[in-house]
């Protein structure tokens, strides 16, 4: 248990929240459709030491596409200690690992990624 931060307990005394400094908190989320380039910047407060990005994918569920694509968020995270701004940017990548899939580009444009940005 931390000696600082704050905690919230339920009626039964169970711990619901511990706001100690080592938590990862969901700071933001955003969705990117297809291969649209993205760039998101956040003010890196003095209480935040790092960012952590988790990506989930909603692919066009046409089987030939869904099972033959390797989706990658293609993200780069940069942090500027001077300005305390960190930026998550990039372009999603959909790699065909399987077979010839007609309308590949259409399926890509129907797909999206959801970026979950956690900060510590």
């Amino acid at each position, binding site marked *: *248990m931390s000696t600082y931060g704050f905690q919230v307990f*339920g009626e039964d005394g169970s711990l619901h929240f511990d706001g100690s400094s080592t938590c990862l908190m969901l700071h933001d989320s955003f969705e990117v459709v297809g291969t649209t380039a993205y760039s998101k910047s*956040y003010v890196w407060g003095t209480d935040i030491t790092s960012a952590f990005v988790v990506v989930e994918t909603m692919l066009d569920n046409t089987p030939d596409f869904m099972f033959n694509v*390797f989706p990658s968020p293609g993200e780069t995270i940069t942090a500027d200690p001077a300005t305390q701004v960190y930026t998550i940017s990039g372009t999603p990548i959909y790699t065909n690992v399987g077979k010839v899939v007609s309308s590949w580009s259409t399926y890509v444009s129907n797909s999206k990624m959801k970026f979950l940005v956690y900060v510590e």
Partner: protein
Amino acid sequence: MSYGLAFLNNSGVRVIGQEEDNLKFIGKITAYTTASYAYMTYMTFTVTSTEFPIVYLYLPYDDVGTCSNATYTDMSSCVINGGSWIWTNTNEINLAVVHNIYNTTGDTWEVTVIGSYGGYPKNACLYVFNESGSTPSTDAYGFRTYKADGTTLAYDSGFKPLIAKWGASFNSVPSGSFGVDQRKLLVGDWSSRNVDKPAFNCSFNNMAYTEWNSIFCFEGDMYWYMLYYRHFVSIIPDGVNVFSTTPSGRYHPSNDYVTTNRVCVNPTSAFAGSSGGWYYKTKTMPMIDGADYD
């Protein structure tokens, strides 16, 4: 992000105008169906959510195998301590990732889980969340913050939010090899971590959350599909072992989930080229402290 409260170390409570989202626990998946595509069996289940659900898959640590060093009888200690890694296991099944989350219609989402060798996990703990805010807790106690519109919940302690004490990244393990990233609590930048247990009430002590990582498998009918590498997060008394291996038995796929007439030894796809250059990106968010989810 312009409203809310921020609680800062050693600074008491200070209003600086910041809001945070959080995740709402929806439920634990216990029922699923299987389907197949091009000889590949996979697992699907549906989730009801007003927004894009976030799904965490935890898999049992599979110790069905034999270490080349007989001193070590489980895969983790074989990897960590056994020196040359040889873990014999040609019937590996519990290698899988959440591959796709698809909005079928309205609030219904179909989640697809693919296992290594085109299989599906026979044991798994699947936990589903979404971003909170849609329904306030009925709890008459606890703590809430609202977003800038003044009505949308950003945080409600009654939701038992997902509070990850830490995550770990594990990247770029070359094809056909393994790697270990051992994080020990009380060491280095993890010196302030104090996780006692995972919050997920999964029966497995060893868990994995795998994101992007795969390799190809070719079968005779011109289908290629991805093999997912496993990345285990194994809890040890003073920290965690995060390690990745080539799928054991990669060269000997079991007929249980890969029929005959296919070859899985070629790491190069006619469509994507060599896998070594792009399969990577595994992240974990495994050790959640605070509330138990079940």
